[in-house]
């Protein structure tokens, strides 16, 4: 444990095979320091989203270990609700609650999980809705919002829990092009503020600008890992070179 003291996430030899026989993860090991921004890139089906989802156990693993804040989340005896509350997650398809207003979306889990009083939850909700620039829509239902606005609500909802880690799963992939910039700006600001972030994205500009470290995955394996400088300007493997040539 002591040698992992600086790390907030430690994944060791994580393996997962889907019921249909597809090997999604092969011996994935990754350590994330507190305050670090790790961006995972790779082609579709490379296992990057699956790996991200194992961190808060939306996806179980077949073998290996994932320690988050000193808690082994892969241990069946672990109380996952407690650790999940400390891990914020933003999804590709927003997953805002359509039957609740924007404000209620951001308040609900604070009240149920963090046991905050309604008034306190409302204050914190407004603080983060203001931060993501959507406070004026607080009484709207999500159906009246654009994709970009929904994603802002989803980010505020996650941040209002005061998570220690934020996971972003292709948070801009389902957005109209003109909405992407605004969401990336929010993510960059969070990175500057020192939030620990693990980000799965196809936005290479964001990776280059905001990442402390970039992880390149292919067919369920981590192929290369390094600073943006190393990954973009000095790729070592052919696979990464090929991937970059296709995407840039």
């Amino acid at each position, binding site marked *: 444990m002591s040698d992992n003291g600086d790390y907030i996430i430690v994944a060791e030899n994580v393996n997962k095979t889907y019921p249909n026989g597809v090997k999604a993860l092969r011996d994935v090991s990754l350590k994330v320091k507190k305050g670090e921004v790790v961006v995972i890139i790779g082609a579709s089906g490379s296992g990057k989203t699956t790996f991200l989802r194992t961190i808060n156990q939306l996806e179980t693993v077949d073998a290996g270990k994932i320690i988050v804040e000193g808690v082994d989340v892969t241990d069946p005896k672990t109380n996952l*609700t407690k650790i999940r509350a400390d891990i914020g997650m933003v*999804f590709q398809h927003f*997953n805002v*609650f359509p*039957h609740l207003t924007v404000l209620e979306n951001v308040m609900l*889990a604070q009240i*149920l*999980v963090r046991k905050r009083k309604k008034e306190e939850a409302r204050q914190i909700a407004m603080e983060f809705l203001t931060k993501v620039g959507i406070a004026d829509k607080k009484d709207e239902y999500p*159906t009246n919002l654009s994709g970009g606005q929904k994603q802002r609500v989803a980010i505020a909802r996650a941040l209002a829990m005061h998570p220690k880690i934020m996971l972003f799963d292709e948070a801009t992939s389902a957005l109209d092009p003109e909405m992407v910039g605004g969401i990336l700006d929010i993510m960059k600001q969070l990175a500057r503020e020192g939030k620990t972030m693990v980000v799965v994205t196809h936005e290479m500009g964001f990776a280059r600008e905001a990442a402390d470290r970039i992880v390149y995955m292919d067919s369920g394996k981590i192929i290369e890992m390094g600073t943006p400088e190393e990954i973009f300007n000095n790729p070592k493997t052919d696979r990464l070179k090929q991937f970059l040539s296709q995407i840039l």
Partner: protein
Amino acid sequence: MRRNRHTLLWNLAFVLVLVGIGFFIYKSSLKINYSWNWRAVPSYLVYKAQQEIDSPVQGIVKGFKNGKVVIETIKGNIVAFKVEHPTLKKGAVVDAGDEIGYNTSYKAGPLLMGLYMTIKVSVVSIIMALVIGLITGLMRISDNPLFKNLSTVYIEIIRGTPLLVQIFIVYFFIGTLFNMTRFIAGAFALAVFEGAYIAEIIRAGIQSIPRGQTEASLALGMNYFQIMRYIIIPQAFKRVLPALAGQFISLIKDSSLLSVISITELTKAGREVVASTFSPFEVWFTVAALYFVVTYSLSLLDRYLERRLAGDE
């Protein structure tokens, strides 16, 4: 303008068809020599009851004042009794226990009492059926084989046997075993039957909510109960409201079968009235109309709720 005229024409045709059907029924009844007697029907819904008023004292009727009969007792006291329709004349001598007149009041007739019983048994049954349906519906989508298999067996058996047989089994077997009243046994039998259908409706509703809703809730640290209570069921409920309303309407109609275990609901009341009036046509048409009033009100309520809930999606 032309379109409007056509709509009007077809609506007129609709009314004509209805009148035609009514006329056909009337003509047919003439053929079988049926004499219609609609005038008897209202008194089986509401009737004017006479309540005899007896004098509690001995004395002489002195007169009438403000709807009261004033009596001077043999001891010389003056007492007054409220009587709407006095039957005695001034100066009449009364003994204690003699009738001095009667009051009238409107009372619900057997058909209205039957309707009340139908509504009562249906409401109790709907509440029980919702609870059963919700629990079984959740069991059905559970990963636990015990819950899953139990609910599947329950649903298959209930859907595969006639309600009438189930009512007999519940009343004669379970009812006797647990010493249930007729009413409870009847409401329970209905609830167990409709619960199986409601379970399937609720299961389908819950499964129609995108997986992402559960994942987002899990990621926020919510537990299974909270996710169901605050995220999934409210959304599912809205989606299945029309199907649920349909099932409730079925339940109200199916409650007519409870007449076989001598619960005097609307159908049994109808049978009793027919037995005493020999006017089956009028009574059964009335009974049908009463059922329709209840089910149609429910249907309107459903439409109202659907419109109100539609606001946020």
